């Protein structure tokens, strides 16, 4: 279990990294290396055999967390452990859903190295962060040879390990912006995994907002590990939007998520039917908690 040979570059800037990726476009498989906690195991198994590795770990400009008027900005190379510990993230007007989900990602030893952008660009359907970003309606800044563009999280994840990044590998995810939470909003995250830190059998990240009458005026419910990528449960949201979030309404939304929003895969750990059941249960539990949090003043 040793990696196959590759050429290795450690650029110091995004420009340099993009130039290196562009130079190797078509000439072999150039891969950006972020935290390496998914890529290096795949290389050790020799399933991933990139000809060239462009290591992003020297690019200082890609790391850091700051608050701005349009939301919380997180550099793509910020370590997951840094996100987990940052008080700006944990604050109720920061991204408490993100803070709540972080401890579910593997183990501290992995989060010390793993990066937030690396996980998002990897787009593993069982990963927590893509679903969390979809629930949070985050925006991603990507940069390529032809400049930068913004992609909404809901449009970034386009398939199994596939994102809206330039498929030839010429673009990098550089920054994530998470909008500030709306008034009277609540959040919750839950997943069922075989063991703490494992890929979840199913998981749910949700944000809800209530209007003055206590009706649900916004619901973003994102599911993980039940499709090709994070699944925004639109039927579930539709079932509860405009409704008083009573136990019945919540249950209806949860059942809609399980029955209509997903076509879950089966594997040795969970059949499709079991995954549907987990989604029904977890959506219900998550919505209950999110609604309860939305009901308490900031």
């Amino acid at each position, binding site marked *: 279990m040793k990696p196959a040979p590759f050429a290795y570059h450690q650029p110091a800037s995004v420009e340099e990294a993009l130039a290196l990726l562009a130079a190797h476009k078509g000439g072999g498989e150039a891969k950006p290396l972020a935290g390496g906690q998914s890529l290096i195991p795949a290389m050790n198994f020799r399933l*991933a055999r990139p000809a060239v590795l462009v290591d992003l770990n020297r690019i200082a400009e890609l790391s850091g967390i700051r608050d701005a008027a349009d939301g919380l900005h997180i550099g793509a190379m910020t370590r997951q452990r840094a996100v987990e510990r940052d008080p700006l993230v944990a604050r109720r007007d920061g991204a408490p859903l993100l803070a709540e989900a972080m401890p579910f990602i593997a183990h501290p030893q992995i989060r010390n190295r793993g990066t937030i952008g690396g996980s998002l660009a990897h787009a593993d359907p069982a990963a927590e962060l893509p679903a969390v970003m979809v629930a949070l309606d985050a925006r991603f800044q990507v940069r390529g040879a032809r400049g930068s563009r913004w992609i909404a999280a809901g449009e970034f994840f386009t398939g199994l390990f596939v994102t809206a990044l330039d498929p030839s590998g010429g673009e990098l995810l550089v920054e994530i912006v998470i909008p500030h939470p709306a008034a009277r909003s609540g959040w919750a995250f839950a997943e069922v995994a075989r063991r703490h830190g494992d890929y979840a059998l199913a998981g749910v990240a949700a944000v809800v907002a209530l209007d003055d009458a206590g009706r649900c005026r916004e619901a973003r419910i994102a599911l993980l590990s039940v499709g090709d990528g994070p699944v925004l449960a639109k039927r579930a949201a539709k079932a509860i939007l405009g409704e008083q979030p009573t136990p019945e309404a919540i249950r209806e939304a949860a059942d809609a998520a399980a029955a209509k929003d997903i076509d879950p895969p089966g594997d040795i750990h969970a059949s499709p039917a*079991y995954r549907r059941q987990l989604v029904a249960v977890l959506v219900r539990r998550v919505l209950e908690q999110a609604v309860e949090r939305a009901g308490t003043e900031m």
Partner: protein
Amino acid sequence: MTLPLVGERVLRREDARLLTGRALFVDDVQLNGMLHVAFLRSQHAHARLVGIDATAARRRPGVVAVYTAADLGDYWQPGPLLVPPPPIPGLVFHPRTQVPLVKDKVRHLGEPIAMVVADSRYVAEDALDDIVVDLEPLGAVVDLEAALAKGAPLVHEQLASNLAAHVVQKKGDYQAAKAKAHVVVSRRFLYDRGISAAIENRAVAAQWDARAEELTVWDTTQAPIPIRNGLARMLGLLESQVRVIAPFVGGGFGPKIMMFYPEEVLVPWAARRLGRPVKWTEDRQENFTATTQERGQVHDAELAVDEHGTILGVKDVFLHDSGAYDSYGLTVPINTQCTLLGPYAVPNYYTEFTAVFTNKTLVTPVRGAGRQHGVFVMERLLDFAARELKLDRVEIRRRNYLRPGQFPFDNEIIFQDSAPLVYDSGDYAPALAQAAEMIGYERFLREEQPRLRVAGRHVGIGIVSYIEGTGIGPYEGARVTVEPGGQVRVATGVGTQGQGHFTAFAQIVGEVLGVPMERINVVTGDTREFHWGTGTFASRGAVVAGTACHAAAVAVREKIFDVASRVLDTPKDRLELVGGRVKKKGDAGSGAGIELGALAARANPLRGAVRPGSEPGLEATAYYGPDRGSTASGVHAMIVEVDPETAMVQIQRYVVVHDCGRLINPMIVEGQIQGGVAHGIGNAFYEQLIYDDTGQLQNASFMDYLLPTATDVPRVEIAHRETPSPLNPIGLKGVGEAGCIPTGAAFAQAVEDALADYRLEITEIPLSPDKLFDLLKKTRPAKRNLVVIEGSFVFQGPRPAVYALLQDPDVLGKSLPGAMRLDRTGDGRYDGLMKVGIGPVTAAEFSVSVTLSDREPPARYGMVVEGKGPFGFTRGTAQVALADAPGGATEMTYRAEVQVGGTIAGVGQRLLDSVAKRMTKQGLEALNTALTARL
């Protein structure tokens, strides 16, 4: 007066080296000029080896040698039969043992085909890609019942069937007992097991010293002496020319006793042939297929009881998975049939098993070694009988226990060590009462459970008992030496894998010789230090080697008294050993008598004479070989909470009352039990090797093969009872495997109790949340090891035209995502090349072939698609039917089964379903586009 050491919680002598990273493990051995090995292993479970070409690999810079079976010449020999079967009348046994490298046929996934020796492991792995190997896949034998069906493929063609062994053992007359029974419960039980998962993988390093003509081998073995003996024989060397060292070994749990692993045969041979040190360290991926495992049994079992729940008889007929070879004999299934009887008086017993060859990795003992299968069957039968009789679960056990006056108790069948199954001693009922008391059994059922049920919580309790045959022969030895410096050196032949031998043996010797612990130095696992013995297995190290240490120490004590009697001019019976000195009884003061080191120097004089009939020095060697093993026992109880909505189970409390005779070191014993329980919990709910129908292992990594972690294992509350064994002077019984033996049975009972309102029965271990979900929903379990794609698609065109185009190579090629080309090579046959990658898996070229069959234009056809590439292979079998759809369209319905092999199958399992669905969707859309353009 000797100072008490046996029975004390003495801290371990070996810890400091281990804690500071200074202990030597085999992979730490690094020698000048050392070469590194990687093995080419079969990606198929069953295949004929048609050809192999290593030319390119041999030419790669950094590669020193590549060996195939042909290169081994006469050295190529099947391995020895490690454990011949016991003398049971009517026993049928077909020994088939593993080979060093595949010569003609692959019989299990991961079987080694070629050995690459290179400057580094990195280069050796690079060279594996250079070897061209032509394997012709054969139908795989996976399922136990299917293996015995007529017409099943044969693992060993020279045999008439896949039957490896058939054994019947009987006591009394079960049928007659059954006729008198008030209740007979009868069930089918499945019990599957997994890998040992020592955190240290196996490793072998070897160095041939041409000047000294000596071979030194470092090996992660549990049995260094038999390895030394076998290697000497195979290599044509004297045993004294071969030194095998099992240094610190990072966990054994059974598979490290297996021998000879192909790598153990090949690495020393290569080191001698190349004249350079050679090392191979197994990686985790190899470990999942190359290191032996324990696997499934299927039991059809019956229990006959009278109206009081008294056992009248038991009948058990089971199948046992041997894997591809049965080199370890019948130890595991015989353990099963002998442990099933448990602590109970069973007057009539009929037990029959058939061991079956399958195309899977060899089965050899893994901690528990088949005992848990038997315990599970018996304990579950008792639970079901208790339920029918409306009898309490504790009560039915208590009523059937053997009583203290019944020992030694002869079960009238033969155990795995070839001796009659006779229990030496035991006292079972008090242990049960103590366990029930500790976990609050009655209060739980009377108060807590009803209260929590009202609150909607599902909590349950389980309590089971078991016995374990431990401490079997043939023998172990030890040498105890008092050195002139005053240290006492203890050498024994068993290897150590964390059991605390350095401490426990020192306690035994220290107590006999009155020497403080810090002056006792124990060596294990080095054939140069001690070269008679067998190894560490079957919960026997402390019992057998410990007793040998005791005997050697007693002999040294005699020598000390002999010499001291002359030196101190005192009769022997007036001498005593205290604090490393021998002195007259009653003499006080630290300077009284003579220090043992000084006495040792006196006993080994440079001048003068050692008297005839005596020996120089203060040293003795002794052996202990029990006629039969000693029988340990225990009771496990646990409380669980189940969330029926998510099917997740949490263990809230775990109690063990254990009796392994006299304790040497309670701290070490508790550690053994705690670790065993964790292993048992893994077996109960987390760990299972999942093979598909082609013998591909679906969870060949620590991502998908789930070892329990610190958050999954509860605190284990332990109480000891000490019923000494009459078979050895200290009264020892073994404990190494105990913790994991009854765990599955206790878990099943507790979960069932927690879910009493669902009225489900758990007859299969391991359980998993997924399986529990099926039980809760009463759904038929879905097959978990096959990707099935089904669906339909409407093409805008008439049926005959669609049918014709679907056979066109250009159109067909479009339906294969990533196809670079596809050519018709015959009627209904196409060959091509496709490039496929997914996510982190780098896109690679796969050769692909498509074969159409059963063509009935324009209605239906079958299709087989086979792909082969660097990470593995895939085979998809599809049935396609076309029907007219409204508006002149054609509806295609399809069902495909996809099998994947190689690394991808082992580590990418969770993605296969999604990948298959995605590729089907892409393929159909591309097909539609291509068809639309042509129609």
